[in-house]
């Protein structure tokens, strides 16, 4: 198999990436892989060097320097957790850590989960805005489907529904 990037060398580095829930496979030669990695700050150089299995396992594999370098907030205001302790243990200290370390967590979660948008269920209390947003998102999908299937009357209905939901959001 030839490298996806240069098309000349044999591909010996195989990666799967998940972007917005879409999985893509890439095959690169070592040289192009190294170049890609410098560009994106990906994780596999740390997998090939000797530091892989030391006690900074989490830090090296899951949280490479590029995502952690620009640390501003050093400790969580609620539990006192530090980013370096998190790198070491791989566990956060409390719910507020997610706010305190948001800028580190977003790229990390993107890497391990393939997405940073929450699509799951909502708690019964305190997430009214989010519920409306999720409904609108769902309706937009329905709208696209309706248009595809040329059900224009239904599409118009959905459009009006989205409009009124958006207005209710603004007035709130």
């Amino acid at each position, binding site marked *: 198999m030839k490298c996806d990037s240069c098309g000349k060398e044999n591909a010996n580095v195989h990666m799967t990436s998940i972007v917005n829930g879409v*999985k893509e496979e890439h095959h690169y030669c070592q040289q192009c892989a190294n170049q890609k990695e410098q560009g994106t700050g990906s994780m596999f150089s740390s997998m090939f060097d000797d530091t892989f299995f030391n006690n900074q396992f989490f830090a090296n594999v899951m949280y490479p320097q590029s995502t952690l370098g620009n640390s501003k907030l050093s400790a969580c205001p609620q539990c006192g957790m530090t980013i370096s302790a998190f790198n070491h243990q791989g566990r956060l200290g409390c*719910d507020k850590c*997610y706010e305190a370390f948001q800028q580190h967590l977003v790229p990390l979660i993107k890497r391990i*989960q*393939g997405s940073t948008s929450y*699509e*799951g269920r909502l*708690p019964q209390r305190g997430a009214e805005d989010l519920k409306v947003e999720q409904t609108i998102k769902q309706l937009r999908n329905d709208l696209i489907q309706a248009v595809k299937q040329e059900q224009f009357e239904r599409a118009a209905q959905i459009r009006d529904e989205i409009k009124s939901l958006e207005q209710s959001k603004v007035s709130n």
Partner: protein
Amino acid sequence: MLHTILDEALSPWMKDTSLDHRIVLSSRIRLARNFKGIPFTNRGDINDLAKVDGYMRSMITPLQTVYGKSFSKINLESLSAIERDVLVEKHLISPNLANQIQERSVIISEDSRISIMVNEEDHLRIQSMELGLQLEKAYEKAIAVDDAIESKYDYAFSKDFGYLTACPTNVGTGMRASVMVHVPALSMTGKLQRIIRSIIRMGYSVRGLYGEGSEGLGHVYQISNQQTMGISEQATIEQLSQIVQGVVKEEEKARAELWTTDKEGIEDKVWRSYGILTHARRISGEEALALLSDVQLGIDMKLIDVTMNFHEMLVITRPNFLAKLVGKESMGTQERDSQRAQVIRDTLLRGTKGGTI
């Protein structure tokens, strides 16, 4: 209640015989939840842990009202090491919870379908189990429990990240959906590795339930979702169910292939395994799992007329359950192998027509 859980190999929910649960043994939903404003378990002090435990003590009655069955709260400190290990072998608690016991507890429903680990890595791990491929049903029950708790206490939740968990690999839905499958024919025909690879490529994980390494002992594997962000609970359950249905189809095809290419060969394997299991005087856990898997395959393919509950056999052959059954805290390998052989003989002969060989 605790007594029944520890001494009976079959949890009540496993006794349902109305379902055809060949190939797919069971479905499980696990939700990771934390309470708002209390440090996660690894960072909480003893007062924090006690607070979480207190919340859950107050939930016993509301849970009973919602679920319609009674719940028991078992403090892990009150159990002996072997009793805790039996709960692990029955998948009611995690090894992690069994090792750290201060202010740790498990809440189990009367039918053992629901178990809630308290102060595991997350404050709560709500677990719901069903026989066969019934992820949807397991999910509904887990959600009923989840809603009951949330109506009294606020969870740690953010609109950006969803349910907040100690490890970012669970953040979002906090849901792990798993299905246990028994796929001996896929192993025998050498098709399993390819299938495992394609499942992994879809972002799901596959691991052998028993033993180390990729080849699962007894050909029992667990398929689970990995992603908890960017996908809803329903979509995850739908995808996983489709994957499992695909695996079932492949396993059925492989069984048909075994049947047409060498029926006598597979019959020979099944009967030999049955012969050893009904006559051996000592048997290791590893060997027992392999042979029991053959017999189960023989039963599924109607090559052998024996009544056996695979779930029961899987639990019965585990070391700690055996020790508990015999009433000993620890046993030497030889004694354990001999006890195991006897229990298997007794159980299989009970399920054989005529009862004697």
